[in-house]
């Protein structure tokens, strides 16, 4: 309850700041339009206004302030503009429509989930290998870290094209980029988790003369669960970023990334922002879903609530 109140306060404050920020951000565009419409603005020409400070312009042209929140192509759209766009493109459109954000979100979601599945599977396998094989541990782990310093996002177009050329199209290329971004947190978390049993717990298994498999299934895997979920949450957010980035190079085909790009291409800032928010909401929902799954699973495993 207290938390809800606090969050609300912060959100309201942020929205307030946002509305305020619209004023200096959008004033130049508003004044340009006013000038074209023949109104008196100071300074009179766009050239002069280019080098003037935004706050100065606001002070000199206070009549224009109310208009900054309803510009059609704003530098910074007002919150209600974004909200309206979100509403219009989700609730008000058939979800099969290409103009429906839900349609695009679902395209992105499928790539995200596929990539997440691949990345998580690979990450867990790699972690199992690393925990059980010293060679893997010593040789693969440093390179896994280096791999993350490669800006895969910059390579996304090439990956798409290369996969394209061997006939892989559609979901999979995006999913591969998503997987690349999500596998690393899973490896790190899972290695940590599989190594989390303490000496005593491992020794106990040794006194039972348990096989490696038994140690894995009965000890390492259950104790890795909290770590796994923590990294899954990071992984799925990363996976979503990967899917969106994977949608950029193929241009305006479909998906939230495509919406983002198309919005950017046509200077539709409101569309960019609503795509961004849709993505964030999607990410938050996915993370929350994982959190729920975690609670249920860990609850079943008897972890103290």
């Amino acid at each position, binding site marked *: 309850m207290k938390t809800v109140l606090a969050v609300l306060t912060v959100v309201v404050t942020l929205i307030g700041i946002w509305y305020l920020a619209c004023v200096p951000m959008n004033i130049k565009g508003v004044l340009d339009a006013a000038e074209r419409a023949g109104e008196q603005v100071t300074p009179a020409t766009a050239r002069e206004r280019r080098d003037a400070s935004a706050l100065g312009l606001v002070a000199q042209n206070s009549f224009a302030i109310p208009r900054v929140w309803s510009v059609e192509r704003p530098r910074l759209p007002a919150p209600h503009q974004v909200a309206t766009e979100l509403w219009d493109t989700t609730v008000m459109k058939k979800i099969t429509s290409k103009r429906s954000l839900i349609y695009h979100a679902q395209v992105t979601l499928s790539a995200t989930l596929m990539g997440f599945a691949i990345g998580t599977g690979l990450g867990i396998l790699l972690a199992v290998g690393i925990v059980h094989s010293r060679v893997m541990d010593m040789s693969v782990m440093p390179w896994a870290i280096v791999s993350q310093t490669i800006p895969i996002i910059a390579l996304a177009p090439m990956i798409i094209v290369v996969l394209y050329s061997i006939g892989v199209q559609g979901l999979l290329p995006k999913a591969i980029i998503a997987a690349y971004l999500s596998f690393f947190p899973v490896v790190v978390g899972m290695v940590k988790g599989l190594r989390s049993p303490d000496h005593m717990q491992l020794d106990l298994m040794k006194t039972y003369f348990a096989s490696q498999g038994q140690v894995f299934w009965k000890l390492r895997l259950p104790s890795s669960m909290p770590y796994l979920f923590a990294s899954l949450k990071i992984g799925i957010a990363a996976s979503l970023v990967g899917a969106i980035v994977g949608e950029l190079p193929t241009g305006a085909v479909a998906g939230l990334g495509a919406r983002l790009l198309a919005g950017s291409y046509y200077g539709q800032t409101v569309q960019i922002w609503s795509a961004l928010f849709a993505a964030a909401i999607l990410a938050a929902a996915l993370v929350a879903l994982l959190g729920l799954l975690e609670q249920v699973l860990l609850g079943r495993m*008897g972890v103290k609530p």
Partner: protein
Amino acid sequence: MNMQMTSRVDSAMDRAPDAAVIEARDLNLVFGTGETSVHALKDINLTINKGEFVSFIGPSGCGKTTFLRCVASLETPTGGSLTVNGMTPEDARKQRAYGYVFQAAGLYPWRTIAKNIKLPLEIMGYSKAEQDKRVAEVLELVELSGFGGKFPWQLSGGMQQRASIARALAFDADLLLMDEPFGALDEIVRDHLNEQLLKLWARTDKTIGFVTHSIPEAVYLSTKIVVMSPRPGRIHEVIDSTLPKERPLDIRDSPEFIEIAHRVREGLRAGHAHD
């Protein structure tokens, strides 16, 4: 699981056949090499016979845990010989010759008490029915019947510790190795568990190796008290208890008890280098 004689009997000629469960001859263990090496066990000679209750006491770092771990083949000695049931500790471990109780209960938090006790049984391949039977039995034994479905955190520390003892008792090992099992408990609970442990020992005729920091506990429980001293870890003195097998709690106020406790304390103090 009965004692099995292997070809290694020669190394244990001076013990009464089929009585010695643990036999250490000039046992040495050095951790690490070079400057930072620690001589954890030095020239340990000790025979523990079937049915004995042997306590190990000594200041921190004197090698009590290390010795128990050697017996359990969790640590490998660097010199001398050690046999368990007449075989190498490793073979004994593979035959699941002992149950081990750690200082902390170390129950797996994601398993219920019953499932925790089942753990060794699952690993050793007992049948489902047998598993259930044994769990019920040992839960009864440690007075935890009815708590099988609870998770560890729902139990008090003392109950958890009892569950961990039950876990070590669930399968057929004649040897029980316990490393400060009651170290974390308060005195009253501890007294109670001591009493129960003694009863259990009397009833089952197991051999018990028991590490403790508490002099009264050692005296109250043991037939033999091994006083150790540190740096390097070695046996300072072995004190045989003259107390009867039947021991009510208030035996601790008896002069005989106090006399033994005094001897142990003197032994400890003599072997102790303050840090």
